[in-house]
């Protein structure tokens, strides 16, 4: 029989994971990825919020609706000439009184390459299973819930919202380009069609998945030489015990599934 037993019911585990997950610092990353036919450079940050905890014996903590709040700044360049057809101002002729007819030549517009910065924030929810992992490293006992596998992130309405955000970001940039104004909507649409929903999912997936796939939730973190009482004076030094073993499991006790931690100690 274990010398020390600590257990949480599902409600307690929920509360514990609420706190543990909220203490995981904001994670961030940057890089570049494919946004449809374009290459976008990005800086992204994400934070996690606990969902509903389900304890599954013998060692699984399932979190439904684990929420990932993410915030991304990205920019991508578009050579508009690859999106928009050649556009020419036609020859313009005027009659100058007493002089005659003067015509300007047909003038073709060279579309520029533009850079579109986009800021977007949203959240996704995922269901994930975590397995208990126990380690003693550098004199510290750790019990962590380590995610099992890579959850499938469903972006759903996010992609449509992000596409709209790109549309909003691109509009003022296109408006600044001479002669585009009258067919702005067509130009914006051409860009959004080029990216497409699939392009966005393909962009976001590889960026956001690592934030979820690498999750380790701290459950227990104590030094092996465990301080019972701190030093109080020269004649009352610190009192320590040694934690010889730690085990963690999900146990089905009675009607409850409980997260159980056990420890053996020595003086």
């Amino acid at each position, binding site marked *: 029989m274990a010398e020390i037993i600590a257990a949480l019911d599902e409600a307690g585990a929920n509360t514990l994971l609420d706190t543990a997950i909220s203490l995981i610092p904001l994670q961030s990353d940057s890089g570049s990825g494919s946004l449809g036919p374009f290459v976008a450079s990005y800086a992204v940050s994400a934070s996690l919020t606990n969902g509903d905890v389900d304890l599954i014996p013998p060692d699984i903590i399932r979190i439904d609706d684990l929420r990932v709040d993410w915030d991304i700044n990205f920019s991508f360049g578009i050579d508009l000439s690859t999106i928009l057809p050649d556009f020419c*101002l*036609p*020859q*313009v*002729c*005027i*009659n*100058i*009184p007493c*002089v*005659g*007819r*003067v*015509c*300007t*030549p047909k*003038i073709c*517009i*060279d*579309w*520029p390459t533009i850079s579109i910065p986009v800021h977007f924030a949203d959240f996704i929810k995922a269901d994930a299973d975590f397995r208990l992992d126990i380690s003693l490293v550098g004199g510290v006992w750790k019990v962590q819930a380590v995610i099992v596998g890579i959850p499938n992130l469903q972006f759903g309405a996010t992609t449509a919202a992000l596409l709209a955000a790109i549309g909003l970001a691109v509009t003022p940039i296109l408006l*600044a*380009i*001479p*002669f585009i*104004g*009258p*067919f702005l*909507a*067509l130009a914006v649409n051409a860009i959004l069609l080029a990216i497409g929903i699939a392009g966005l999912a393909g962009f976001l997936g590889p960026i956001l998945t690592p934030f979820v796939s690498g999750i380790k939730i701290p459950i227990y973190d104590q030094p092996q030489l465990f301080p019972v009482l701190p030093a109080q004076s020269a004649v009352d030094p610190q009192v320590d015990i040694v934690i010889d073993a730690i085990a963690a499991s999900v146990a089905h006790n009675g009607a409850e599934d409980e997260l159980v931690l056990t420890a053996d100690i020595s003086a």
Partner: protein
Amino acid sequence: MNMNQNIFDSRAIRRTDCYAQRFMRPGKYPYHILPAGTAALNDDRPYMIVVKDGDKAGEMKQHNVFIKGRSAQYAPDNKELTIDVGDLVLWNCVSADVPPFVIAGDHEFFDSGRLTNECGYSHAFGHPGEYSWKDAYGSGIGGVVKVVDPACKCEADVRKWRAKLGDGTIVMIADGKAQPDKVEIVTGQTVFFAVVTSPGISITDERFLEKASSHC
């Protein structure tokens, strides 16, 4: 092309601008194509308009000179052009993203930086808005070009708008004033400023004039 390349100023000819000059006397008219505002720094005049004494009673003919350029180097497609007296030569740059330029001739009347007689400047307006223009040299000549958005809502509207782009608008400048002094066009249309007689003016967007009014 960016917003700066649609600046409305005859002293700096750009991709969507044209400069036209009529030559009323026979002779040789050398000129250079130089970055805008730098004509005083270079006395070379490597290109030539040769005006023959032809049939003055004949109809005015138009000759186009297309300029190609890279950075601040410009070259006309026809380094020496021979025309008849009374003909008009029109310069336009076909290269994208080159700095604005001037056609700098040896004769006072032959200078795109300062429109004097029998010349013109055209500009295609790329953005809607109300453009007040003024002579940067202080003659007091000025006017307004109101550019309205065609408010295209569908592809058919865009087609209609494109069909209108061939319609030009003329502003005649003579005797110290512009006629009409206010014109209205849609985005993408061209206004041709025909200078019949003047003391040497520019057609300059007032907003730039306020920022850079340095002339003597």
